[in-house]
């Protein structure tokens, strides 16, 4: 789950990381009130989950209430790479001496936590990584040991930060590591991490991705409430289905994430374009098929539907009965093509057989079914 900047800053602040005083605003009046509270000058920042806000005109400096009104009015409603700005974060503008970069994430290859620190922050860090990889000091941390004080000092020294920043950086990096681990983040990134002329080190931005698997041990309701989903994804989320919306026209239902991904591959290989990824999981519950089929059929782009089932422990006849029961409860407008294989596939196919027709077809293999479903979509 990705957090907005203001949520990331609240998250950081809860672990003691210094961030600028500020407030959230959904209207111009709220923006002025937040600015008055933070103290001028302030920065008015668009809250969207996409990079390049500054270049798109989504980040502006304001010295008084009139300027806040002007900028807030312009930024609210702005379209930044397809994201419409609905919320602003107004914070006290900081004096900046230097800009750094700091982050923690999991290195899946090393199976350790990876910390990255650079004296060249504030810019496109990915470009720095390409052009001047030595400018990023990396540290691999064993999760059992955690980040020790001595390691943090060595790391800051390797990154060659300004000597004035060393103490502040060591303190913030240790706090950031705690936020990353105790906060169950997949990513905790500060860019830029700034050194003020006064010598203080401070997080000027916050990019945080939380691990959804850990939500049971945190109160993330507020973050969860602001997640951006399209209407299809919202419906799937409410039905507890593993769904990802795409922009094609063949609806996909499969049992298992790997098989669902593989179904997208095969549909593409025969010249089609999938409308979604949907994993109904194991079991043969008719209710799950009702929900899955309804979400897909409500998608105006969908022209045909591919149900791809491989029976394992759940037997073919159970799945076939589940599908037939589901189809009896709802009216699906797009034609459906089923491929049913695996455990007791013969018995399952026999159950489906009497229901076959123009609206419901069956094919013996994934490839045959993909060809048929794409043909039907194009017909």
């Amino acid at each position, binding site marked *: 789950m990705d957090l907005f900047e203001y949520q990331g800053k609240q998250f950081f602040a809860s672990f003691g990381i210094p961030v600028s005083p500020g407030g959230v605003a959904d209207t111009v009046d709220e923006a002025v009130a937040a600015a008055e509270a933070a103290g001028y000058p302030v920065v008015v920042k668009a809250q969207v989950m996409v990079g390049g806000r500054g270049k798109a005109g989504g980040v502006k400096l304001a010295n008084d209430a009139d300027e806040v009104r002007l900028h807030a009015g312009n930024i609210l409603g702005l379209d930044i790479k397809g994201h419409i700005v609905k919320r602003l974060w107004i914070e006290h503008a900081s004096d900046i001496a230097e800009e750094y970069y700091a982050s923690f994430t*999991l290195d*899946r*290859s090393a*199976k*350790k*936590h990876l910390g990255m620190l650079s004296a060249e922050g504030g810019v496109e860090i*990915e470009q720095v990584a390409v052009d001047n990889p030595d400018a990023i000091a990396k540290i691999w941390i*064993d*999760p*059992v040991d955690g980040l020790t004080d001595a390691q943090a000092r060595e790391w800051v020294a390797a990154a060659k930060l300004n000597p004035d920043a060393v103490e502040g950086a060591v303190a913030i990096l240790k706090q950031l590591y705690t936020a990353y*681990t105790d906060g*169950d983040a*997949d990513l905790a990134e500060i860019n830029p991490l700034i050194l003020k002329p006064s010598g203080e080190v401070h997080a000027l931005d916050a990019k945080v991705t939380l*691990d959804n*698997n*850990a939500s*049971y*041990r945190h109160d993330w309701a507020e973050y969860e409430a602001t997640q951006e989903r399209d209407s299809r994804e919202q419906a799937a989320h409410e039905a507890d289905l*593993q769904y*990802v919306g*795409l922009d094609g026209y063949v609806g996909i239902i*499969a*049992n*298992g*994430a*790997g*098989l*669902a*991904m*593989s179904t*997208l*591959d*095969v*549909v*593409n*290989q025969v010249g089609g374009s*999938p409308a979604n*990824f949907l*994993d109904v999981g*194991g079991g043969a519950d008719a209710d799950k098929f009702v929900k899955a089929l309804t979400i897909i059929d409500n998608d105006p782009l969908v022209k045909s539907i591919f149900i791809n089932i*491989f*029976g*394992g*422990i759940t037997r073919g006849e159970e799945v076939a009965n589940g599908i037939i029961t589901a189809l009896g409860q709802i009216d699906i407008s797009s034609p459906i093509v089923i491929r049913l*294989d*695996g*455990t007791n596939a013969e018995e399952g196919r026999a159950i489906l057989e009497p229901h076959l027709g123009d609206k419901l077809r069956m094919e013996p*293999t*994934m*490839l045959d079914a993909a060809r048929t479903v794409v043909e039907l979509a194009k017909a």
Partner: protein
Amino acid sequence: MAIFVDENTKVIYQGLTGSQGRYYGLLNRDYGTQVVGGTNPKKAGTDVDGIPVFASVAEAVAETGANASCIFIPAAGVKAAVMEAAEGGVEFIVCITEGVPAHDEAWFFNKLRRDFPNVRLLGPNCPGIISPGKCNIGITAGHIAKEAEPGAINVGIVSRSGTLTYQALYELKLQGIGVTTCVGIGGDPVPGTSFIDCLQAFEADPDTHAIMMIGEIGGSAEEEAAEFIRSSVTKPLSAYIAGQTAPAGKKMGHAGAIVSGGKGTAAAKMEALTAAGVRVGANPTEAGELMVEIVKELSA
């Protein structure tokens, strides 16, 4: 022979008294797996359909001589369950549970490596492992796998995906090809057992003649496996990578299946495997056909 588990493996089920643990524990026993016990501190002294329940893994090991454990415990309890299994004295831990926090996984992976180097963890978030005809631990339907036969050409399977693993087993069975062991390593960010661990074991197993590998987008495990194949695997392989057409930046169900910034793409993985001499199929069926070809060549 088989890798990791065989007819001598004695398994206890942590969470045997729960609905999933009971369902699959009994199915595994029906298959022929030596299911020797379960654990639940609140139900010690009772039994599940004749399988004794113990208070802890240590007690179960002492009483039954179990050398493996299968975890069907809710995600919140997995970290403690894995450590209890290792401390209790089993050598092989299969964790079926999905939804385990990544920080827990990273922690117990490193803790095991450091304090219990001889303990192998499979999973979390995996379908388990089956050595057909000998031992089935987890949620794989045993009857879709054909037993390896002495004198025949037999295949080992290693996979990151559940349903695609079943499909691979099934297609090989339809072709009359036996499987020594099929290992589902799972799709999580820090799997206890990697492709490389399995490739190494299959390479060393004299009864495994060819290897089928099923990967997914995300991470770099397949690329690392390709490097290992190039340097250390002499047996022929076929492979399939799921998610060739998945859009970048979208999570596709498995925590591991995400493409970011051009890294971990299916194309990169397929290229690396092809360069290492692996026959890579465009879909699971094609990977199965490629394996049939390999088996025919080896039989000739």
